[in-house]
């Protein structure tokens, strides 16, 4: 007797919970050969609004945790991902049409990248902060602080490694984020959300919306309570990118600009993905005499 398929309709990840889209729309997710895999929630502007609210609420707690604690939590994400490795390998291979071996390599790289960023949590301050020499009896200290709520349009092609490579650098420094996943390949992001929900990351620190960056992006770019936006997910669409940059200018958002084409995610990312969403605070302190 053949078993009946368990049909899946995945949901969004907002504020640590998995709600359906406020619009109640879903869309079909196909594998690389065009075969139906599952339904995913189609995020609307109101889901984006709710996600921003959740991210804002989580910001105070997350940014005031010690860097050491944030490192532990991000390392924990890597641990849980490692446990779910087969599921990620299958999701990546289905979405991106890679062989199991190649997909395995991509998943390893994604996990390693999380571990790498976890290590940076309590080191980035030493690298980009400074004790500045000034002409007076003062300590002059510059320290990096998180920008706030960062909207991230995740890459369209690299559904897992790309996703991790844009999300981890944002949260490791204390920002909270609203992520719009790849439209055609959302399932690795959905599984990643399930990992986040079970790995000590406080609800609201990462919110994952599945849906179209072109639909939700403009609302996030114009949202006055979003402090920065990463446009990687609309790489190659210069027209849309320009529109979003204009919308983002209204409240002086930091913008990480859309590249002409999706970068090679296997390269060493460097510090730029982290420093793009940091503010520098400089304090003057009199030297006691």
């Amino acid at each position, binding site marked *: 007797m053949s078993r009946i398929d368990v049909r899946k309709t995945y949901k969004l990840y907002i504020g640590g919970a998995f709600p359906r889209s406020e619009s109640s729309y879903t869309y079909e997710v196909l594998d690389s050969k065009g075969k139906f895999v599952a339904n995913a929630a189609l995020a609307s502007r109101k889901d984006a*609004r709710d996600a921003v609210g959740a991210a804002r609420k989580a910001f105070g707690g997350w940014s005031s945790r010690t860097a050491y604690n944030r490192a532990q939590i991000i390392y924990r994400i890597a641990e849980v991902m490692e446990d779910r490795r087969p599921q990620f390998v299958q999701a990546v291979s289905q979405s991106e049409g890679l062989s199991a071996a190649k997909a395995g390599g991509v998943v390893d790289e994604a996990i390693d990248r999380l571990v790498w960023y976890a290590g940076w949590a309590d080191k980035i301050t030493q690298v980009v902060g400074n004790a500045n020499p000034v002409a007076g009896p003062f300590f002059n200290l510059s320290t990096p602080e998180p920008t706030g709520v960062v909207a991230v349009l995740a890459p369209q092609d690299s559904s897992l490694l790309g996703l991790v490579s844009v999300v981890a650098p944002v949260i490791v420094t204390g920002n909270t984020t609203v992520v719009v996943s790849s439209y055609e390949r959302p399932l690795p992001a959905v599984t990643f959300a399930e990992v986040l929900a079970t790995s000590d990351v406080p609800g609201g620190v990462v919110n994952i919306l599945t849906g179209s960056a072109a639909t939700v992006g403009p*609302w996030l770019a114009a*949202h*006055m*309570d*979003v402090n920065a936006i990463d446009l990687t997910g609309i790489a190659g669409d210069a027209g849309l990118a320009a529109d979003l940059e204009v919308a983002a200018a*209204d409240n002086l958002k930091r913008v990480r600009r859309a590249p002409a084409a999706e970068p090679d995610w296997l390269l060493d990312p460097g510090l730029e993905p982290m420093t793009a969403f940091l503010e520098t605070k400089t304090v003057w302190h009199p030297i006691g005499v």
Partner: protein
Amino acid sequence: MSSTPTILEDVTGSEASLRRFLHGLPGVDQVGAEARAAGLATRSIKTSAKEFALDLAIRMVDLTTLEGQDTPGKVRALSAKAIRPDPADPTCPSTAAVCVYPDMVAVAKETLGTSGVHVAAVATAFPSGRAALDIKLADVRDAVEAGADEIDMVIDRGAFLAGRYQHVFDEIVAVRDACRRQDGEDAHLKVIFETGELQTYDNVRRASWLAMMAGAHFIKTSTGKVQPAATLPVTLVMLQAVRDYRAMTGQMVGVKPAGGIRTAKDAIKYLVMVNEVAGDDWLDPDWFRFGASTLLNDLLMQRTKMKTGRYSGPDYFTLD
């Protein structure tokens, strides 16, 4: 002097007749009331109707600060905000009133001046109401003398729950008399039931009739100091009471839910209910109010969203 309408005069004559009347009121169908309130809460209010509702809700807000830590500076800031809630937008209406403790009335009055925004004061040993009648009345007179346009009194819940309705009735009548100003005008009287302590919807209905017969201008759900505060079903029962009271006596009484209404979405649910249960005569700041503080910022945020087409954030509105 009581202001009970003639038709109800023999009801309020004695403790026994008052009890007979109040216990003779039809009981509230709890499940029905909750289902009706939940059903009305699903109405979708969009575009121009939403714009209207947001502006109306702003005009209905009693901007409230009732904390031990209130300072004259805070009351001045709040009053300034009540006059002009959104300084960036001159088309934004003022709120109905600011609501403060009696000792802050003078400060609020000074800032509000002739802006048309009223000063409401909570009196009668707010929020517990546990004091001798003389002290409660002195509290009211102080506030009225200082210039309060509206007095929010609390009923003696202990007496009400013990069934001493005449005591509660007489107290409301006495407070209403104390609301008389030198110039012959009355400060408007709002009667707070603290529905969170009344236990049942039947009691809410009885308290509503009792207060209306004693001459309340407004009936108000809660002090905001007890949970649960205002809820949709409780307000539904009170709106039914004012509707029926007008049908019987021709007199209109206002309703004020207070406490726990924090979002524009909630406020709009209340407005829908006012329209459907009591009627659109009550869709006016003279007859329906929201006792709130954080609600105003959310209303302003939604209003800004409607005007600009983009989502706003709490950074752009004053904290209070």
